[in-house]
């Protein structure tokens, strides 16, 4: 009997030992697994760093047309503070026509610019003289605006810092508020848990957690927000492992970079490094004690204590933290009293609380795709330097939104029924300076500038006239018949284009037919020069899609995106030299090593002479044709050129226009492709005018060659004439391609002149 009892005990002990062994093995395996996980994260790349995208740096030099108000706007965008006396980098002052800027140090893909004081003297909205640290200079650059990032799916953004960069007071306050036993515990703090339990029992609810900084880090790094025993146990085990492998400073540094400290739109602000910039516009090392108190206070609840969104809560929480700082002897009574009464002093607008440019960023991302994988862009912290001009971008966004609302109100259309898109290019360099893809410029969605394929209407006409001028049959006053025209299509249907005013305009000189955008004359011209030749011209202008040689292509009955239209007009604006449109100048690693630069490339695809004549016609479009509204808004000496476009049934309103330096293409329409009560001139053209109304433009001087000569011609007689005769105009011609007849008036003038020479 005794034997049996012993045997049962032995069995129990034996089972206990066996189960313990199994438990130990399972725990060992679990620990090994968790250990691998911890080491992998800590020793590998801890954070995915989004690529940072920058605008162009403002290049300033004597002679540059720049209104002081736009320089001030840019300085504010890049987080410079206006002060009465400039003392440190990031400040500026204005004194009459002079401006003093203390430039911060910055690096670009093509080098670095040191911190320096820039003094500028303006005269008539132009930089008259420039000094750098007191010395006159020819050129100086300003740091570029950070315009966005290419984020991983979780949209986390951070600016990594080293522990040595963080102020000692920040570390002390963080430890005092979040984990007083940090330097004594081994990952979990029984003392801290007991203290929290006591407080919670006293308050009758969960008011204080017992998690150490290590546990918080582990939770953020590896675990979900789930509240369960399993997660708590895993968190505790992993915290032990983290403490086993890494010293307190490493853990603290990881914590400072990992902690979530608020939201900025779609972007999650992580780490004290980015939070310092985001809330206070300064580097972490420059934080003051009350600012430290605000940030440390936010750890408990980044949304509840957000100083920008919940200032009252944030102020109360800051004062609680200041109280802890006083209690711990980190600040004096006097400091506590003084700082507790102070405002939050968060910056309303900083470089890091940026306005993003979704449509432009979309273009950047697409252009980077050929060289970089998405993963590189969202995790390696690359720096991407682009050509975005923030001043033009802002003006374009405002112009699109304003004109669309005006049209909706003026024509009784439903609000928000119209949409718009715009692409602005510095045509000589091929650099894209602004992109608007939606009337709400902050919208991350369908990008009409790049993806809306719309019928281009009369924007196709320059290709038809260029085809004619490239041959030897036509010149600027060649007579074109604008009578009714019918063409049988391959499907048996008749194509019968009509003019916008439903009238015919008889015989018109070639350049006037385009200036007035006559459909019947253009259709006839297109058929005369040959549709396949027109298709070839489109190709030479940079249209990559294969266009069918149907008659209707001459009036633009095919679809293109605004961006592709801009490429086509870039070739026209730069006298036949095609430069692929690009938004990126260079890419560097996070440390500033150059990875790639995207230089200037060009290809001559059209001869200079015919494109010279085309530019002259397009100047006539502005002078006396469908875009003459521009002449009422801009100085005539700018010699602007352009073309309006309205598609069938007025479903699309277009304008493509250029000066000596800028080209912009505007589209206005409805996403459902319904007709509108506006044309290219009353919709898109007005957006163009509004965009550039206040911006400096260079005059357009078409590039001539020695093969071009100007002659007086009788416009409606296709004949050379003379100054002083009726109905004459001086127009350019390619040598050997001009009217062969001479008007009777010119013959008389010539005879008179000969007579005068002989007998006077």
């Amino acid at each position, binding site marked *: 009997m005794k034997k049996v009892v012993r045997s049962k005990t032995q069995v129990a002990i034996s089972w206990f030992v066996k189960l313990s062994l199994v438990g130990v093995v399972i725990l060992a395996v679990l620990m090994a697994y968790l250990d691998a996980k911890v080491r992998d994260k800590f020793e590998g790349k801890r954070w995915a760093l989004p690529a940072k995208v920058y605008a162009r740096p403002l290049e300033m030099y004597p002679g540059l047309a720049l209104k002081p108000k736009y320089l001030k706007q840019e300085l504010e965008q890049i987080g410079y503070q206006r002060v009465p006396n400039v003392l440190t980098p990031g400040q500026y002052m204005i004194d009459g026509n002079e401006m003093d800027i203390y430039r911060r140090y910055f690096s670009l893909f*093509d080098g670095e610019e040191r911190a320096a004081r820039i003094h500028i003297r303006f005269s008539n909205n132009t930089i008259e003289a420039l000094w750098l640290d007191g010395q006159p200079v020819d*050129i100086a650059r300003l740091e570029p605006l950070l315009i966005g990032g290419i984020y991983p799916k979780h949209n986390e953004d951070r600016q990594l810092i080293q522990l040595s960069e963080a102020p000692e007071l920040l570390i002390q306050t963080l430890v005092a508020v979040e984990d007083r036993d940090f330097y004594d515990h081994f990952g979990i703090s029984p003392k801290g848990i007991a203290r929290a339990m006591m407080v919670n029992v006293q308050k009758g609810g969960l008011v204080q957690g017992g998690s150490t900084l290590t546990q918080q880090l582990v939770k953020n790094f590896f675990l979900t927000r789930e509240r369960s025993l399993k997660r708590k146990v895993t968190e505790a085990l992993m915290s032990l492992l983290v403490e086993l492998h890494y010293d307190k400073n490493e853990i603290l540094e990881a914590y400072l970079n990992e902690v979530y400290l608020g939201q900025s739109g779609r972007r999650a602000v992580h780490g004290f490094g980015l939070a310092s910039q985001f809330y206070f516009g300064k580097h972490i090392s420059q934080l003051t004690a009350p600012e430290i108190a605000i940030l440390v206070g936010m750890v408990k609840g980044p949304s509840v204590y957000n100083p920008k969104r919940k200032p009252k809560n944030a102020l109360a929480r800051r004062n609680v933290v200041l109280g802890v700082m006083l209690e711990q002897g980190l600040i004096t009574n006097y400091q506590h009293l003084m700082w507790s009464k102070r405002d939050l002093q968060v910056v309303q607008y900083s470089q890091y609380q940026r306005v993003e440019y979704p449509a432009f960023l979309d273009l950047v991302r697409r252009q980077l795709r050929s060289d970089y994988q998405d993963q590189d862009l969202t995790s390696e912290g690359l720096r991407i330097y682009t050509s975005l001009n923030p001043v033009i971008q802002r003006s374009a966004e405002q112009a699109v939104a304003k004109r669309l609302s005006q049209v909706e109100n003026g024509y009784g259309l439903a609000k928000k029924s119209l949409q718009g898109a715009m692409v602005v290019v510095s045509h000589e360099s091929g650099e894209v300076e602004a992109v608007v893809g939606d009337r709400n410029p902050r919208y991350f969605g369908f990008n009409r500038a790049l993806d809306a394929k719309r019928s281009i209407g009369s924007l196709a006409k320059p290709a038809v006239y260029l085809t004619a001028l490239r041959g030897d049959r036509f010149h600027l006053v060649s007579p074109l018949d604008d009578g009714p025209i019918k063409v049988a299509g391959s499907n048996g249907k008749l194509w019968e284009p009509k003019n916008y005013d439903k009238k015919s305009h008889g015989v018109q000189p070639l350049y006037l037919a385009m200036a007035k955008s006559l459909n019947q004359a253009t259709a006839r011209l297109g058929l005369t020069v040959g549709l396949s030749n027109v298709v070839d011209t489109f190709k030479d202008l940079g249209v990559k899609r294969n266009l069918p040689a149907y008659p209707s292509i001459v009036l633009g009955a095919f679809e293109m995106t605004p961006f592709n239209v801009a490429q086509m007009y870039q070739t026209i604006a730069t006298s036949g030299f095609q430069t692929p449109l690009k938004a990126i100048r260079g890419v560097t690693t996070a440390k500033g090593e150059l990875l790639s630069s995207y*230089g200037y490339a*060009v290809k001559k695809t059209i001869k*200079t002479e015919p494109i010279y004549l085309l530019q002259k016609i397009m100047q006539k479009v502005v002078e006396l044709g469908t875009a003459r509204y521009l002449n009422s808004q801009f100085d005539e000496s700018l010699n602007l050129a352009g073309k309006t476009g309205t598609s069938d049934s007025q479903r699309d309103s277009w304008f493509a226009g250029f000066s000596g330096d800028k080209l912009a293409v505007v589209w206005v329409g409805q996403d459902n492709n319904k007709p509108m009560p506006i044309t290219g001139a009353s919709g898109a053209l007005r957006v163009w005018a509004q965009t550039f109304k206040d911006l400096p433009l260079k005059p357009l001087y078409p590039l001539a060659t020695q093969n071009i000569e100007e002659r007086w011609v009788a416009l409606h007689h296709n004949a050379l004439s003379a100054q002083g005769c009726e109905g004459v105009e001086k127009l350019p011609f390619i040598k050997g391609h001009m009217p062969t007849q001479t008007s009777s008036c010119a013959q008389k003038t010539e005879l008179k002149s000969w007579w005068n020479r002989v007998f006077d």
Partner: protein
Amino acid sequence: MKKSVLIIAAVTCVLVLNACAPATFKSESAKSATSLSLLPNWYHENVGYQLMGGNDYPSNNALANLLMEADSAFMQADLQRCQIFLERAQRIASRDAGVYVRLSYVFWVLNKTAQAEQMALRALAVMADDPQAKLEIERLLAGIQGSRY
């Protein structure tokens, strides 16, 4: 004696009038020609043409500053840096033939002959009617088309 006094007085008058006359307007093409005439020594020495110029830049000018930096980078065989300076120059003076001739030459040295040729064509287009400069660019073009650098 009387005659020589009159001559001296006339010459003085002409000089004074000339000095007081307003500066003559220089066309875009004339500016291009000036800049092209200031191509650096390295260009002339390497291409072998001594038609014009030397290391002389217009003073107090952002373009000149960038061109000097580009030329200095070229002399240090840092062609990428040279190209970057030239592109900055092109952004602020897009019709300066000197910029395109330098770019053409840099591309030629890099054996990117197609780009070198296009840059030279661009230089020719913005050059307009300066026969001497035109001749220089045509020679450069012929060099590029005829051989690898």
